[in-house]
């Protein structure tokens, strides 16, 4: 691990004043640290300065009592949100995404804001012996011709096919969540769905956040799509593993008829992957195993497999279909 300077601001104003003004990654925000410390040990991230925001009161708190929305401080712990009784019953997709995201020890420490900013699990990104455009822009992508079983089949580019590793962000997109961000210059709110970028030619730029912007809150509007929702995650083992394919689905049903739907995929794409084509195909249809399977296939339209990840196209479609059937039973 490279040497760094450690800052412990005691107010959000002090934290914002310490934020970087360029995108060099030389200054990093430290929340729970479960990704950042790991990547610093690997020398994949080598910040000169850590800005430890843990404990800043303005960034904590879980408020689910609002009439119109639920609000979560960026520092809310994954386990606290996952195990909230109201969220468990009214928004199972959110609890399931959090519970399936990591081990209990990680969920106790990792924060919502940190989790949606977590970085790639691509072995070429995490290793030090291979070219990686995400780590060293312009160096190339070792995954495209390399071992790419875990990589994305949707949203990739010739520069990067790293799969987005998160689960929470997939569920947040399905719940139309918003992200509040703040800098010394401005406050603004963006849709969770707009936070992450496609890799294109610059996979090192992963989000639409400016370097000096800090995520302060995550807000979820109350919705009739919450109850009949599910996060279905398919992994190499039953628990504590990253997704090969996952689906966050949320439905509004009238009997068997689908009135509205959100379908978002994880594990198969370079960012949280909402399929509006799949949603539109399902709306006004009856939810059956056949319609769910057809919608799953539509969700994977445009997939481009590499040597080792062809299986993800069928797996992704089946994962969506199973998620829809699980959610449908919760109406």
């Amino acid at each position: 691990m490279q040497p760094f300077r450690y800052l412990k601001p005691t107010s959000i104003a002090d934290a914002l004043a310490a934020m970087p003004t360029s995108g060099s990654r030389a200054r990093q925000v430290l929340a729970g640290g479960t990704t950042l410390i790991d990547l610093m040990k690997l020398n994949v991230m080598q910040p000169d300065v850590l800005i430890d925001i843990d404990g800043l009161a303005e960034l904590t708190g879980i408020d689910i009592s609002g009439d119109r929305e639920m609000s979560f401080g960026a520092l809310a712990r994954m386990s606290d949100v996952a195990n909230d009784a109201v969220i468990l019953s009214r928004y199972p997709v959110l609890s399931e995404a959090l519970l399936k995201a990591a081990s209990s020890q990680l969920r106790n420490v990792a924060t919502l804001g940190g989790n949606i900013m977590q970085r790639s699990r691509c072995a070429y990104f995490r290793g030090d012996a291979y070219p990686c455009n995400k780590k060293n822009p312009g160096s190339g992508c070792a995954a495209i011709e390399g071992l790419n079983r875990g990589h994305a089949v949707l949203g990739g580019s010739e520069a990067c096919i790293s799969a987005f590793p998160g689960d929470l962000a997939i569920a947040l997109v399905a719940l139309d969540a918003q992200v509040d961000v703040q800098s010394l210059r401005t406050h603004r709110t963006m849709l969770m769905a707009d936070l992450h970028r496609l890799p294109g030619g610059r996979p090192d730029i992963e989000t639409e956040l400016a370097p000096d912007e800090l995520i302060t809150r995550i807000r979820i509007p109350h919705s009739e799509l919450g109850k009949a929702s599910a996060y279905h995650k398919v992994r190499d083992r039953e628990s504590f593993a990253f997704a090969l394919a996952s689906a966050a689905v949320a439905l509004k049903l009238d009997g068997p008829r689908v009135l509205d739907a959100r379908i978002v995929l994880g594990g198969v794409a370079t960012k949280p992957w909402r399929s509006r084509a799949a949603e539109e195909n399902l709306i006004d249809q009856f939810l059956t195993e056949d319609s769910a399977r057809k919608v799953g296939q539509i969700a994977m339209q445009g997939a481009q497999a590499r040597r080792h990840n062809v299986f993800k196209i069928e797996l992704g479609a089946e994962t969506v279909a199973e998620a829809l059937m699980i959610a449908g039973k919760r109406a």
Partner: protein
Amino acid sequence: MSSAETIDGIPQRLGAQNLSAGSVALTLRVNDAVHAVQFDIRSTLLDVLRERLGLTGAKKGCNHGQCGACTVHVDGRSTLSCLMLAVQAVGKHVTTIEGLAAPNATLHPVQQAFLDQDALQCGYCTPGQIMSADACIREGQATSAEQIREYMSGNICRCGAYPGIVAAIEQAVGKM
């Protein structure tokens, strides 16, 4: 335990601090004792526990948050000490396996249950397993074998003592 603001002149809580790279002197509260300790700012909590405080129960298995052998409690919650900087634990209560038994050395119910159920073979992962198991029971997540297995999935046992571990947790549930 001391309620003083400083120990040997070293503050117990971080104020608005800027710490330079290199060695720092801070206080850590571990197993209800306050320790003034000097360490490189890059040190993980695991390294300080093992190398500075001689608490070698928590193990450095994978060192990347994947095996659970380093599990300790921070403010009562199971935590991977390999993925937490020691400086992040300043001002918090850290409990390690060495602090779990009663002061008169009576074993904690989970420790006793691991012995009774033969829930280990080589023992390397056991301190982490026990710290997670204690949290599992206290959080009410030990209501079925299936739930125990899911909760404990962050603790890997390469000897494969899993059936005994589940049985030990089921035994300890009623005794805590």
